[in-house]
């Protein structure tokens, strides 16, 4: 297949992902590389990093190279009176990369579902996240958590803002030993402490995690979050998504924006998370929109690393011609070889740096 030969694997993956989302009725969304800086200032905690590349437009307005796609999509859906807004995108974003501390152009593909959404939509988005990972690699894991449970347990602890942000960081690290010490320092009640510590090592197969959570979720808020997880579990099982889609409470997103189900995807061979998403109704509320929303983004720049295999040859054929041969004959032979699906490099003297599979001499 010519497509297999010419398109890079990551380009093929991007293509397959787009057709997957289109199949589920998501509409393509194209946006400008630039966005008003003001949008990011107002929601800077939502961004992975609060640093953005800015510049002045010709009329003096401050613009930014967009570090995020979700905010632009929400801004766009503001005027529309839709019961449901389902879009997918494939865009470059510009943000500081965690491990290097430098600005990086990151290719991301993802989708957002905004409006009057129900559990079926939530489950569809989570399944699509799993299917997206499956399209990229057989060896994947999707970890799901629920911010509602984390919030309910934190409320019970009554430790204050600083305590809460330290706890979420420790849960994200699976750092049980420091979490215990922190609860002791803040004199948290034994029952609240037991729940938070349990969250820091709450991961594994869904049925098992649900069983453990059942005993811990006592108040109404936690129970309602747990029932969402139970329903999600049922729907995922009926879609055949079992072993690779798990519950893991070390997935913690910013509580100011994320309120419901949140998830993170991992692919074997890629050291950082390859997919990230969740329900972010709180972000909509902060932007004066009364609706629910869920979405995710898959970071495609990791794929070039995953799929990289060094080429053995630069071209299939080295067409070596004698200087006495007419140019027409060279062109004809070259076209003939190309039409057979081979890549060709023609030269009268063997080139030093080109590696070729076979040599065809034209005398």
């Amino acid at each position, binding site marked *: 297949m010519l497509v297999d030969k010419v398109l890079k694997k990551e380009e093929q993956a991007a293509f397959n992902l787009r057709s997957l989302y289109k199949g589920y009725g998501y509409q393509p969304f194209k946006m400008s590389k630039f966005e008003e800086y003001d949008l990011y200032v107002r929601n800077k905690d939502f961004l992975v990093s609060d640093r953005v590349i800015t510049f002045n437009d010709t009329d003096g307005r401050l613009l930014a190279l967009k570090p995020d796609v979700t905010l632009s999509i929400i801004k766009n859906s503001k005027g529309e009176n839709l019961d449901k807004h389902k879009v997918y995108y494939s865009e470059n974003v510009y943000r500081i990369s*965690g*491990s290097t501390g430098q600005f990086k152009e990151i290719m991301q593909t993802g989708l957002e579902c905004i409006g009057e959404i129900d559990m079926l939509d939530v489950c569809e988005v989570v399944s699509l996240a799993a299917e997206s990972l499956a399209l990229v690699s057989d*060896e994947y*894991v999707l*970890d799901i958590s629920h911010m509602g449970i984390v919030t309910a347990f934190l409320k019970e602890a009554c430790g204050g803002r600083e305590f809460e942000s330290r706890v979420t960081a420790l849960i994200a*690290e*699976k*750092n049980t*030993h*420091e979490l215990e010490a922190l609860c002791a320092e803040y004199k948290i009640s034994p029952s609240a402490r037991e729940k938070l510590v349990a969250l820091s090592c709450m991961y594994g197969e869904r049925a098992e995690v649900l069983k453990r959570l059942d005993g811990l979720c006592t108040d109404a808020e936690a129970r309602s979050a747990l029932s969402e997880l139970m329903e999600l579990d049922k729907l995922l099982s009926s879609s055949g998504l079992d072993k690779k889609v798990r519950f893991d409470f*070390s997935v913690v997103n910013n509580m100011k924006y994320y309120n419901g189900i949140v998830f993170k995807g*991992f*692919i*074997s*061979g*890629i*050291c*950082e*998370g390859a997919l990230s998403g969740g329900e972010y109704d709180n972000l909509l509320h902060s932007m004066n929109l009364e609706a629910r929303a869920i979405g995710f983004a898959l970071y495609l720049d990791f794929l070039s690393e995953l799929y990289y295999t060094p080429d053995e040859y630069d071209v299939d054929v080295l067409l070596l011609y004698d200087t006495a041969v007419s140019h027409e004959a060279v062109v004809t032979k070259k076209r003939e070889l190309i039409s057979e699906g081979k890549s060709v490099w023609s030269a009268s003297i063997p080139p030093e740096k080109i590696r070729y599979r076979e040599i065809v001499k034209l005398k």
Partner: protein
Amino acid sequence: MLNIALPKGRLGEKVYDILERAGYPCEAIKENGRKLIFENTELGIRYFWVKPSDVSIYVERGAADIGIAGKDILLEYNPNVYELLDLNIGKCRVAVAGKKGFRDDTRRTLKVATKFVNIAKTHYRSVSRDIDIIKLNGSIELAPILGLSDVIVDIVETGTTLKENDLDVLETIVPISARLISNKASFKFKTAEIEKLVEGVRLQIKEND
């Protein structure tokens, strides 16, 4: 195969002893040589020695599945990893030290010499103290003696080096010990292997205590 990054030096040797007792021996590691990688194929483990401050980089980037690093390194570089266990060894503290009888004059910017730029910045930001950071790579104790800085932020174990140089600990920023860390993606795909190792090490630490 589990790849384990060990910090070169005394701490790394102690950590290896714990791992050996926990059922993860690799005889070749005890031979003195220049080799950096040691494998026990039967147990499916591979050890390698790296500079202590590089352990978190190897683990964060997935070249090592797990590693042992001091909490000072984790606080300084803030790597995106799981911190699974406190080994309770290599205990010390990051502290502020200055010349004997030093008093902080808040009318002027405080000059701070340190290897731990982030820890120092975070600490002084939390108390709103304006500082001038001087990044050094070794012999930090020299800085206040020669007037390069007012104070230093450094690791203090017994305090002997400070005493010998007429320096005093002014305040402790954070207690330090060795931690077992894991790459997040590795943890997803080698869950059972990592859990088993962590449990083995946990038992050894309990016995030590």
